């Protein structure tokens, strides 16, 4: 069962080789058997999933198919509001977040025929890159027990890697889709800011939040993105641009694509294994006909400072109630990060927002004038041991968090599409990963390169 992808399961369902009910039952059985150890789920909705699967099966019998997700079991990060289910956002509070309407991305997947198995574990308030959670249990890396699943969408990556779900929604404010995807050896896509509606999902930082898919293959990520992308009047930041047919351009050869590899910052201080795997992937990409060149990228530090001012200010504003009324419920590192936001001036916050536009214009003009895509590492080291990342004082943990997410955060500030995908593994099974970054709203080219590399 764990070898399914959306594409292969959808074909099997369409050919009546497996029914939506059978697929759902098999995934629920796998969750029952293995999730006591992995801790990917906070809520399993077996009854709801089977009822949906039965209804979808009846539609198939009646000759109706909703498309490539018809009867495909998915699950979503526990910050997406789904009517009838609690949304803890990884906190101690069972129903921490609610919304007057269903999360738009979840609703679009449901309408496309997906079966939702439940809600997935995550770092508390989506604030942590390692996947530990004092309230719902630390998510174990399915590839290597005792090691981080990455975060904050830890359950989303672990569920896909463990074969519990064919895809999962995650959120990414500083790397929270790409970091767990890299740690668990799956694909994670942070789309362009505004490409996917965040309506009905818990905000952490309005200016930096993105929703996106975690999947087993790049082709599956293209399928899910095509369904969840597009304008939503419930999200004032969602773009009115049309949504391309991502699947149609996946097979277009990558010969001639100009791929940039950073000569500064992104390879500084990363492990030899990780650097070696990304460079080996670049050689493979070159072998497929792309033109690989070294590029010097603008110093990301001013952008990271700007992003920190924005994220600290906005997250403290959004989550001020729990921080002021029930601070003892929050993990110490989360409390420490939120608290900073109360001390940042409105002047600095507004200056940061103004600077962000200037940095983005300059980056797009300078970098994408030379190359079409960037290929970079995602994480500086393979998934570290869980006990190691939890050790030390809150300030030490916060500093460790910053180091682990330093390769992903710049692209939240810039709002650019970024795809994480596996590029090998260590002998102990911990995955190695690369990141592909593209022009604004050019997910099609990002996915095309990722698919070409993955297919080999």
């Amino acid at each position, binding site marked *: 069962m764990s070898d399914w992808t959306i594409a292969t399961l959808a074909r099997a369902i369409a050919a009546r080789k497996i029914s939506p009910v059978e697929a759902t039952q098999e995934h629920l059985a796998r969750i029952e058997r293995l999730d006591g150890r992995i801790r990917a789920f906070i809520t399993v909705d077996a009854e709801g999933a089977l009822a949906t699967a039965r209804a979808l099966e009846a539609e198939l019998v009646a000759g109706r198919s909703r498309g490539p997700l018809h009867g495909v079991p998915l699950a979503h990060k526990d910050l997406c509001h789904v009517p009838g289910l609690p949304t803890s956002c990884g906190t101690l509070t069972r129903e921490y977040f609610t919304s007057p309407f269903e999360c738009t991305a979840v609703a679009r997947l449901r309408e496309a025929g997906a079966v939702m198995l439940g809600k997935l574990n995550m770092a508390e308030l989506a604030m942590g890159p390692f996947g530990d959670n004092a309230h719902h249990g630390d998510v174990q890396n399915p590839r290597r027990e005792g090691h981080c699943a990455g975060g904050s969408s830890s359950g989303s990556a672990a569920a896909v890697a463990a074969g519990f779900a064919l895809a999962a929604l995650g959120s990414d404010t500083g790397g929270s889709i790409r970091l767990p995807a890299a740690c668990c050896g799956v694909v994670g896509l942070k789309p362009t800011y505004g490409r996917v509606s965040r309506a009905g999902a818990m905000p952490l930082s309005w200016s930096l939040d993105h929703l996106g898919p975690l999947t087993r293959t790049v082709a599956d990520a293209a399928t899910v993105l095509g369904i969840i992308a*597009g304008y939503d009047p419930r999200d004032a930041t969602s773009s009115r641009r*049309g949504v*391309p047919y991502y699947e149609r351009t996946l097979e277009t050869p990558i010969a001639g694509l100009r791929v940039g590899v950073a000569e500064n910052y992104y390879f500084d201080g990363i492990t030899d294994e990780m650097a070696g795997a990304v460079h080996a992937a670049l050689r493979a990409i070159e072998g497929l006909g792309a033109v690989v060149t070294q590029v010097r990228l603008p110093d990301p530090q001013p952008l990271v400072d700007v992003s920190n001012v924005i994220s600290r200010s906005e997250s403290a504003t959004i989550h001020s109630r729990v921080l002021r009324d029930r601070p003892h419920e929050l993990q110490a590192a989360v409390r420490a990060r939120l608290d900073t936001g109360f001390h940042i001036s409105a002047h600095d916050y507004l200056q940061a*927002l103004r600077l962000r536009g200037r940095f983005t214009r300059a980056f797009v003009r300078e970098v994408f004038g030379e190359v079409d895509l960037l290929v970079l590492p995602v994480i500086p080291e393979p998934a570290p041991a869980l006990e190691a990342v939890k050790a030390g004082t809150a300030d030490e943990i916060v500093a460790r968090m910053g180091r682990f997410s330093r390769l992903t955060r710049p692209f939240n500030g810039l709002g650019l599409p970024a795809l994480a995908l596996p590029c090998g593994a260590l002998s102990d099974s911990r995955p190695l990963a690369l990141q592909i970054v593209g022009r604004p*709203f050019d997910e099609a080219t990002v996915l095309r390169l990722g698919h070409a590399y993955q297919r080999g």
Partner: protein
Amino acid sequence: MGNPERLVGAEVANLAAAIERAAADLAMTEEPAGFTVALEGEDEAGEPRE
């Protein structure tokens, strides 16, 4: 956790100094919405689905 107030104060001071340095030559025409314009200003990519 050492002295939390001192650490928060140092982090905020560092961020404020970084913003001041970067914003020294910001033009009055730069506004927060400039970010969205920077993203949307690119030519539309791909074949529209709708």
